[in-house]
């Protein structure tokens, strides 16, 4: 019985932990995208050297980050549309579109990891659609 109570408590804590502050969680998730692109962006722009290990590592992390944000309903629940957030009302009024934008983005990141780019040209080809999705989603779903 003790074990059961403990397990339930732990589970509650865990799930609570994941959703206690969805607004802060999604912003932290987005901020991490920014810092990972600070590694990848300059390479694509030709301002930093292409190093396979660095690029693949950052892509893996970007993929983990995208997977962590796959549950739109958990990160963008009702009641988190105001306060310290730049989110647009379209995230709720066009829920399907937002989910699709999120899925498309996630698929592009997964495809880039899959491609395992070994040189600058193939990296740029995999990275360009990812970079375009950031602005594409922000255009419609963020102020």
């Amino acid at each position, binding site marked *: 019985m003790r074990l059961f109570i403990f397990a339930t408590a732990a589970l509650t804590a865990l799930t609570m932990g994941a959703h206690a502050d969805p607004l802060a969680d999604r912003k932290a998730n987005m901020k991490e995208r920014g810092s990972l692109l*600070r590694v990848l962006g300059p390479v694509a722009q030709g301002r930093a050297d292409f190093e396979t290990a660095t690029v693949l590592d950052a892509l893996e992390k970007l993929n983990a980050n995208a997977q962590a944000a796959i549950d739109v309903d958990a990160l963008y629940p009702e009641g988190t549309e105001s306060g310290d957030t730049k989110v647009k009302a379209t995230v709720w009024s066009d829920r399907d579109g937002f989910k699709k934008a999120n899925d498309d983005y996630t698929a592009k990141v997964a495809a880039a990891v899959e491609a395992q780019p070994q040189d600058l040209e193939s990296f740029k080809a995999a990275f360009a659609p990812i970079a375009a999705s950031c602005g594409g989603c*922000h255009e419609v779903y*963020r102020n």
Partner: protein
Amino acid sequence: MSVLARISGGVLLVAAIGGAAAWYLAAPSRLDAATVASLGNGDATRGEQVFWASGCASCHAAPGADADAALSLGGGERFVTEFGVFVAPNISQHPTDGIGSWSAEDLANAVMRGVSPSGQHYYPAFPYASYARMKPQDVADLYAFMKTLPEVEGKAPSNELSFPFNQRWALGFWKMLYLDDAPRVELANASDEVLRGRYLVEGPGHCGECHTPRGALGGMDSSKWLAGAKAAEGEGNVPNITTGEGGIGDWSKIEIVDLLETGFTPEFDSVGGSMAPVIRNMAKLSPEDREAIAAYLMAIPGHASAN
């Protein structure tokens, strides 16, 4: 759309003060003969650059349109305000539904003076208060380029404005106050690059329409030029893009140029909202023009954020 709301409110107030002399004073003023004569023959290749620099597609093509879709200028985008809805008209080459039968002079009067071929005022939601600074040659080139664009069938619906906001004549007062082609800021000993940047930002680029706060009557507050403003549509703020506090003083020139080309800030956030279509346009300019815009932003007076 609070900006439009304020513009419309301002127009009304001025109209009320104006009284009897109203009709005469508010009569549309067209471009003078010398300017019209200087329109000359346009060059469509140069005109394409003018088209992107001035962002016509951001309002007159379908929202989010890129590539060829951005050249399909059927209009129809709705700008919802508390006074009613403005709808971007069809400005494609369709002879009756669009502006296919217009002369270069007609286009120049619309873009630089906000006057229609039949002599009516346009609402300043069409940013002619900025385009007034465009060079006649650029508008002639723009005309030549627009002539190469497709015809799109179907008139866009009319504006849905109720009385008194549907009184176009009253816009003449607004124009008397806010329509001029003088520089927004004085720049001593500016380099050619900075002057080119000034032209692009203050004229065709119409950056101030979003980035500058407006006064009670809806005119741009030049003393806080580009210091940031409340967003015209929805909530949120348009950022300060001067070097003052809260602005972009710690950005390098390369970082500003990169933003205009790729949409990424130095923090690698990707700008969105109404700036996203601006980036799509800026990305099509020459590198020199993006550098000129950056040089201008770094040269103008810095202001603390206005919002």
